[in-house]
Every structure is written in C-alpha cells, then in structure tokens.
C-alpha cells in the first residue's frame, strides 16, 4: 500500500491522529526551548555538518583506522556487506558460544536488518530492553519512530499489552505502575541473558571506542552481566576524533527530546576483563548512497528523530504509514535508495515545507533531496501515470499562451455553471473536504488590459 492510503487510514481516527500530532509537536517544542538556550546553536550545526561531510568523504580511511584502533583495544571487528551477512555474523557469535538468550538495547540498524525474527527462527530468545521498543515487540509491531518507538501507543494501549504479556492488573494505565512492572520483568531478562547487543551512536576512528546513548541505562545493564557484547553499527556512524564527540552529544539529545544530554552516555573502549566485544560494521546499501552525488549527505544523519517530530505529514500519518525501519523525512530518502519501487510513494509524502531541513542538527538538505528523489523516480518510470500525463498536458498548455488563455476563459465560463454533482464526486480529490475556488468573470490579464484601455482614453 502506498503512503497516502495508509495515512488516510491513520486519520480515520481523527482524535487519535490529533493526539499523535500534538504529542510529537510537544517534543518539537521542547527541542526549540533547549536549542534556543545555546547561543552557539547554529554554529554547532554548521560544525557538525562539516565534520560529517569530511568523515563521509574520507570514510574508507576512517573505517580502517577505526578497525585497527578497536582491534588494538581487544575488540573484534566484523564487516557485513548486507543485512543477511550481519544477521549471520550475530547468529554465529551466539551459537558458537552456546548463547540462547539475547538482550538488546535500541538499534534501528537491527530493525533495518530484521534481526529479531531471524534469530527467533534460529531458536534464540530476543528481548528488546528499551521500554518503548519492548512495548512494540510485545505488541508484535515494528517501531513507529526511531527515538520513541512506541509513540503511537497510548497508556491505555500499553496497559492492555502489559496485562496480556506481563500479567499487570486489567485496566491499569498509571505510567509509573506500568513502568515498574516492566522494570521488574526486564531485570529477570538482564540476569538471565547470555549475550547483550547494542547499537552504536558514535564510533571514534582515532580511539577505536564506541559510544552508546540511552535514557534508561538498558544498554549498560545488557552488556555488563553477560560475557559477550555485540555492537552493530552502520558504517556512517564514524567520527574522526574524540574531540568531535562533544559537538554531536550537545546536538543529539537536544534535537531528539529537548534534553541537554541523554541520561546515559556510555563509552566502550575494548571488552571488559574476561568478556568479549564484537563490533559489526554494516554496509547494507550505504556505499551506494556514498557513491551518489545527490544523496550522499543523507549519510550524515545521526538518527535524532527531529525531522520526524517536526514533519507535519509524519505527525498526522504515523510512523507505520512509511513501512520502513526509519520513517519520516530522512527515511523517505534512505528507503528508496535501497528499493525505489517499493518505496516510490515516500518522496511525495511531503509538502516540501522544508521544516526538516531547518531542524536537522547536521544540516542535511532533506526536502531538496526528497525533491531530487521525485525526479529520479520519474527517470526510473516509477511516478504514477496520472502525475506524468497530467504534467505533460499542463506543460503543453503553458508553452502555448493562446491555448492557456483560451482554456482559462473556458473554465471560468463553464465551471460556475456546472451542477454540484458534476464538480464534486469521487474523481475530484480536491473537493472531498474543500470547495473549489470561486471562478471570477475576468482573468487578471483581462482586467489589466481593460484598465490600460481606460487609461489611454
């Protein structure tokens, strides 16, 4: 199904769509407040954009430097060219060590690779320990937002899910009660786990260290007990130097939730004594994006989710309407890069308002890239026929001023005389909720010409 159809479904429950919009707008407002407290905000953004552009332009060098530094610190670095290779590496690590239970902190990369179902098919128990991600895991759904995976769930929904899976009281909706129940159950999972998997927010080429940011401390719990820590990261997560990190940590949490910094910012430099650290570097289409002049800048993304929170379309259509692991504006660039046919409707799920571009902490020109995608889709023959033919027709009329004037005159003559049922029917999407403009008797050029005649008399 295309985005427009799924969005229409989402909006059918208007109060819920409104609630979703307002909840995310609240997060955007918190971001504004946090950003406005830093006089150097725009300088930070510019700085971050340049660091990322430099890193992406020299990615091969920094990846090799990172591998060598991380290896020196005792980590094992793996390279995965796609999702299947990544999943196989993770499974082999678990199986070779007899690990049956895996706790994960939030990782959109593993969502992108569909790791959970793959591991489950192979007999591994996987528990997502980020509260939001656990909620959607229990509900059997994908996350609808990269920072707030269960943002589409109300507390009543969470109460129902927890009642069914954790045995909390029926009808309970108190967030503290529900969080406590989850915390208790998750502690069991942490204690029982044979291995912990985390995502990576930043990897430092100079030091070979990785940085994981969470608000719940679940990454630290998940990797502190078991003897195996697997860290999965996209190859674009690199920063050249440790001193670059400050710029990004200051931008990340402020852009994501309006916090000055995430509650936990954990630095891992090699494995802890007696344990193993495996870092899986995943390409999965990123090299193709790197090779494309037009879309390279989308690799600068630090997954803060600010473009989702600010997007007027995302807020009113929900993350699931994008049908991809990273939804919203940035996801609408990334998904077609992997599979233009399946995701052909995403670049048009956008009014080109440009708010995403201005909110982006690394200054990705998101809305211009979406516009470029529309052109690419047209070249690939993936634009709907109605749009292609419509535009060919319009362009023809506009290249012939006499025809254009005549067509306008005719419309202004006929449309006001048509009965409503001919104007407002299922062929007129405009008119479902909107009136057509009132057609004036004269066009501007006719009025202007008439005035000129008047003046010359």
């Amino acid at each position, binding site marked *: 199904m295309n985005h427009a159809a799924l969005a229409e479904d989402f909006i059918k429950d208007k109060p819920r769509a409104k609630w979703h919009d307002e909840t995310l707008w609240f997060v955007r407002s918190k971001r504004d407040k946090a950003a406005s407290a830093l006089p150097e905000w725009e300088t930070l953004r510019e700085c971050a954009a340049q660091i990322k552009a430099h890193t992406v332009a020299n990615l091969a060098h920094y990846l090799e430097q990172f591998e060598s530094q991380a290896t020196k610190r005792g980590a094992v670095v793996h390279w995965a060219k796609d999702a299947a290779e990544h999943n196989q590496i993770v499974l082999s690590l678990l199986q070779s060590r007899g690990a049956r239970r895996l706790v994960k902190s939030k990782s959109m990369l593993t969502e992108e690779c569909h790791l959970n179902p793959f591991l489950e098919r192979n007999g591994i128990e996987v528990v997502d320990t980020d509260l939001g991600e656990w909620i959607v895991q229990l509900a059997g759904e994908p996350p609808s937002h990269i920072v707030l995976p269960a943002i589409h769930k109300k507390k009543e929904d969470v109460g129902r899910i927890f009642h069914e899976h954790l045995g909390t009281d029926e009808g309970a909706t108190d967030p503290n009660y529900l969080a406590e129940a989850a915390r208790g159950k998750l502690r069991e999972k942490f204690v029982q786990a044979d291995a912990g998997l985390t995502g990576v927010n930043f990897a430092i080429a100079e030091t070979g260290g990785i940085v994981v940011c969470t608000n719940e401390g679940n990454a630290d719990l998940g990797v502190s007990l078991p003897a195996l820590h697997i860290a999965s990261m996209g190859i674009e997560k690199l920063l050249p130097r440790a001193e670059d990190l400050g710029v990004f940590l200051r931008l990340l949490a402020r852009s994501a939730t309006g916090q000055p910094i995430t509650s936990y910012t954990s630095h891992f430099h090699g494995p802890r004594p007696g344990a193993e650290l495996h870092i899986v570097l995943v390409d999965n289409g990123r090299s193709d994006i790197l090779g494309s002049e037009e879309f390279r800048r989308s690799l600068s993304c630090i997954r803060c989710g600010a473009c989702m929170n600010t997007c007027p379309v995302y807020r009113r259509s929900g993350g699931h309407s994008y049908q991809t692991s990273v939804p919203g504006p940035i996801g609408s660039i990334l998904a077609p890069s992997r599979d233009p046919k399946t995701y052909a409707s995403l670049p048009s799920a956008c009014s080109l308002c440009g708010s995403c571009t201005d909110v982006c902490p690394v200054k990705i020109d998101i809305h211009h890239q979406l516009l470029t995608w529309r052109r690419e889709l047209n070249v690939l023959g993936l634009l709907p026929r109605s749009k292609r033919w419509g535009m060919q027709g319009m362009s023809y009329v506009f290249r012939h001023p006499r025809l*254009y004037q005549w067509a306008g005159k005719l419309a202004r003559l006929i449309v006001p005389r048509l009965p409503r049922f001919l104007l407002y029917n299922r062929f007129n999407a405009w008119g479902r909720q909107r009136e057509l403009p009132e057609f004036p008797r004269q066009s501007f050029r006719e009025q202007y010409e008439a005035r000129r005649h008047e003046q010359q008399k």
Partner: protein
Amino acid sequence: MPTVGLFIPCYVDQLYPQVGMATVQLLEENGYQVEFPTEQTCCGQPMANTGCTEQARPLAERFLQIFGGYDYVVAPSGSCVAMVRCHYDEYLEDRPGFAELKAKTYELCEFLVDVANVTRIDRAFPHRVGLHQSCHGLRELRLGRASELMKPDYGKAQQLLTLMDGLTLATLARADECCGFGGTFAVAEEAVSSMMGEDRIHDHETAGAEVMTANDMSCLMHLQGLIRRQRKPLRVMHVAEILAGRSV
C-alpha cells in the same frame, strides 16, 4: 523610472485577478513603472515539484526570455519566486542573463521592504490578522526567520503589515507550520493535506484572527476551500490586498 516586469502566477491570473491588481497598485504607488508581459504563463513549478523536470525545462527557458530584460521582476508569491531563484539553476545555469535574472527577481513584500524601502503605509486595516507563513517564502527565500532556526527574528510581511493603522497580528500557537497545500500533494495526499489545513485554520481562529493572510495565494486557496466548506466566518486575503487598502 525603473521598470518592473510583473510576474503573475498562472493561478493568480486565472482565479485571483484582484491580487494581481493590488500588486500593480502597490508597485505604481511606490514609483515603479509596471509592465505585464502577456506571453507569460507558468514558471513550471508544478512540473518540477512532481519530478517531471523535462516538462518544466521549456517553461524555465521561456521565463528567462520573457523577463530577462526588465530592471526588476516582482511576483505576489514566495513560492513562484523561489522556483526562479532556488530551483532554476538546474535548467538555466550558465545561460547568459540567468544570474542577473535571479538577482533581480523578488517576492512582493521583499521588494517593498528591501528595494522600495517602504517605511510608511498611510492606510488603516482595523482588524486582527493572522499571518500564515508560506513555506517557500520562509524557508527558501528566507523572507522571515523560520521557527526552527536560532537566529534573530525578522519578517518582511510582518514588517509591512504592522505599518498599517489599526492592524494587530494574532499570535499563533504554531508560528509557521505548513498549511498542507504543497501543489499535487493537496490531492495525492488529500487526507493529510486537509487535516493540516484544518489545524492551521483552528490555530488562527483560536488566536482570534478575523482575517487570515499570506504572501502565497496557493496556500490561501486550499485554506479558503476548507473554510468555505465548513462555513466558517474567517476571511482570507492576500497580503497585497490588505496593503493596497482593500476592505474585508
């Protein structure tokens, strides 16, 4: 007297002649000679925004030919001017006269503030006005500060409107959220588009606006469509109409 080539967007020409006439009045009052080249039709934005760039190209070429000779080119639309200034490079880069064309093409409010240096408007508009910030004017042409940016506040349309006697600007909860028009987006994503428009209207109503204005008639066409269907009392006027002294 410098000559302004009047650039009237196709839908304004066909559907909103009063906006074009108000633009002519404002330019003439400020001492400019106005010419309307009748060969003009459309800047090509609908095609470009849909991805049909090859359909937009000949229209960009026509535009340069038609408007290249004027001292200034002015349009009562941020969106169509953004097409020329921010998106014509793809079609016209390196063409003789294109760099000059970009530099002399202005949105109306921008022209009145930055070129005509308007600092007084001796007219009254005793109403509470909600200013809708059209996205392309705001975030492509930078006619004001977008709320995402942590920069000093300014706004060309606000600056002009507040020069008028009796006019008060309504304070909106969301200062510059998109109205949901977006060209073909309005029909391709009809449900989201309509909800976005409704939410904007609600914000203006809550802020006590009697008149909703903007420097793009396309946003207002969409909003007015919703307002008229729901029979709301909120009125809709282009900024040029208010500045030129038209009454509600």
